């Protein structure tokens, strides 16, 4: 049954991936100027023949649909050609160098959002319209209504510049970079038992992580709260209480488990949205990950690099949506997976 479900969903992904890649491909044709001119840059005088040769080499003289085919074929193998702005390096190597930082920040933001949102949602649901619920509701509304870049700047002003509690830019104190294992500093520091490096990396993640997590935490908190309120009113919860089970068992075991079903789906979807916030937050905090790389590449008109990063974000988003559906189907027996 599961094999069929996955096969079906993976088949449905194909048109989505074609659409996503085609739009990314088209954006290059919207850009002013010729990619060959960008690539040659300040390479000095070049004859028309050499230009034509390069155009033929990269397939730029072929029909659009053939060029798209070449683009997809290369993209699947992770090849996006040379970067215009990082001289002498391929897009692939530039992207690979930045990927661990973004993974680290995104996972950190995810953990903050979940660790904060689920308990807050549960506590709020126990006493609807009580003091905690009101505070949490206002907080969630602020989290949804606040632009992430501004929250980041305000956190920088308060905790970085006025209080000097936390660093406001970068990934780690450069003197403390741990030995390379995975490129993820916190993980590398743990693996090499390097306490100071771990602490430094964690402090650098704190502010961007919170700024990135805020909208997701707000959405998840609201979802947990409303589904808990719904579940707590159900007969089986009343029955569990009537049996004399302790309240912690009733809430933690009977109610929470069912209330989390719709939440899991939302969490996976929101993780996709975290990626959008990631570009902005990395830019605000000068955090050297993929998002900042893309924004810098836009400024430098490095279109192949922009395309590669956008494609990575888009494909991750599509896959996270798939995970959301699969988790939903796995947890909720009412969802037909066949």
């Amino acid at each position: 049954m599961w094999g069929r479900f996955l096969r079906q969903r993976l088949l449905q992904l194909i048109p989505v991936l074609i659409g996503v890649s085609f739009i990314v491909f088209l954006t290059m044709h919207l850009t002013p100027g010729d990619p060959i001119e960008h690539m040659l840059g300040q390479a000095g005088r070049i004859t028309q023949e050499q230009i034509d040769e390069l155009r033929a080499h990269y397939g730029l003289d072929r029909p659009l649909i053939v060029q798209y085919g070449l683009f997809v074929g290369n993209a699947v193998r992770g090849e996006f050609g040379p970067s215009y702005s990082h001289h002498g390096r391929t897009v692939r190597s530039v992207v690979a160098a930045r990927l661990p930082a973004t993974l680290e920040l995104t996972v950190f933001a995810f953990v903050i959002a979940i660790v904060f949102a689920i308990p807050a949602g549960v506590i709020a649901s126990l006493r609807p319209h009580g003091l905690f619920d009101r505070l949490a509701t206002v907080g969630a509304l602020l989290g949804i209504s606040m632009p992430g870049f501004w929250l980041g700047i305000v956190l920088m002003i308060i905790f970085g510049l006025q209080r000097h509690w936390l660093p406001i830019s970068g990934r780690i104190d450069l003197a403390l970079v741990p030995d390379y294992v995975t490129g993820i500093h916190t993980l590398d520091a743990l693996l090499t038992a390097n306490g100071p490096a771990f602490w430094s990396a964690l402090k650098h993640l704190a502010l961007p992580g919170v700024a990135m997590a805020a909208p997701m935490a707000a959405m998840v908190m609201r979802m947990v709260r409303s589904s808990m309120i719904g579940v707590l009113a159900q007969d089986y919860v009343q029955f569990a209480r009537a049996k004399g089970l302790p309240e912690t068992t009733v809430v933690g075991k009977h109610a929470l488990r069912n209330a989390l079903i719709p939440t899991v789906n939302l969490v996976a979807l929101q993780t996709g949205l975290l990626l959008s916030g990631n570009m902005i937050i990395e830019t605000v905090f000068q955090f050297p990950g993929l998002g900042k790389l893309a924004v810098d590449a836009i400024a430098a008109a490095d279109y192949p690099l922009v395309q590669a990063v956008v494609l990575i974000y888009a494909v991750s988003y599509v896959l996270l949506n798939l995970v959301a559906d699969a988790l939903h189907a796995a947890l909720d027996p009412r969802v037909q997976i066949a």
Partner: protein
Amino acid sequence: MLKLLLGNRVAAVAGLVVVAFVMLAILAPILAPYDPNEQHPEAIRAAPFWQADGESRFLLGSDSLGRDLLSRIMYGARISILLGVVVVLLTLLVGTGLGMLAGYFRGAFDAVMSRIVDTLLAFPFLIFALAIMAATGPNLVALVLALAFKGWVDFYRVARADVLAAREADYVTAARGVGASTAHILFSEILPNIVPPLIVLAALRMAIIIIAEASLSFLGIGVPPSIPAWGTMVADGRADIAGAWWIATFPGLAILALVLAVNLFGEGLRDALDPRMRQ
């Protein structure tokens, strides 16, 4: 409906705040103390008036070019609200139109549209808006299209589902029975019944569009730099947060206030118009 909405004090206040922002935007040329682009070289990064070193000429202070922040925030409201309204109207019309046709006629059109919609739903909205704007550069027409690119899908889905339900309803069967034309059934019979959820959605979408526009402008690929916009202003102030925190803080506060008001008003509308969704 109006009574219900006014009965909800939070939503009523939020509605007033939204109206105040709209008035501010319209009346900016009359209300603003200075031209938003006028530079005062003698008063660069002037502090807000309540600070010890503040100047009463610039109530909220001035930026790194000596431009009055209050005037720029008032003018910034214009582009945020204008783009929000244009994008939401565009997506509302396109999405509702296509959704009604798909829901009413079903068949091949519906099947094709559903494929397109499934594909678009998988697109991360802001990232694609960013890709489009990266290719075209800051430009208002491209910005509207980039922001509208996926937004119509939400309206499409609501309109389609509601029309699917309505086409089997007794009042539609009755209209068909007395020989009403398809156009009459769609626009005079069904449309008025599906408007409330669409209005609620429009309000909530407005909040999302305002934040998205500000985010793109913050990254320098949204509103052209010659037009005062809140996102651009926060970006301008970022370099000065150590010495002049107000330059980045106040425009962001304006975004927060407007988006919060729009969200609260939208949720109030939902409670008033759509009792099923009342929490």
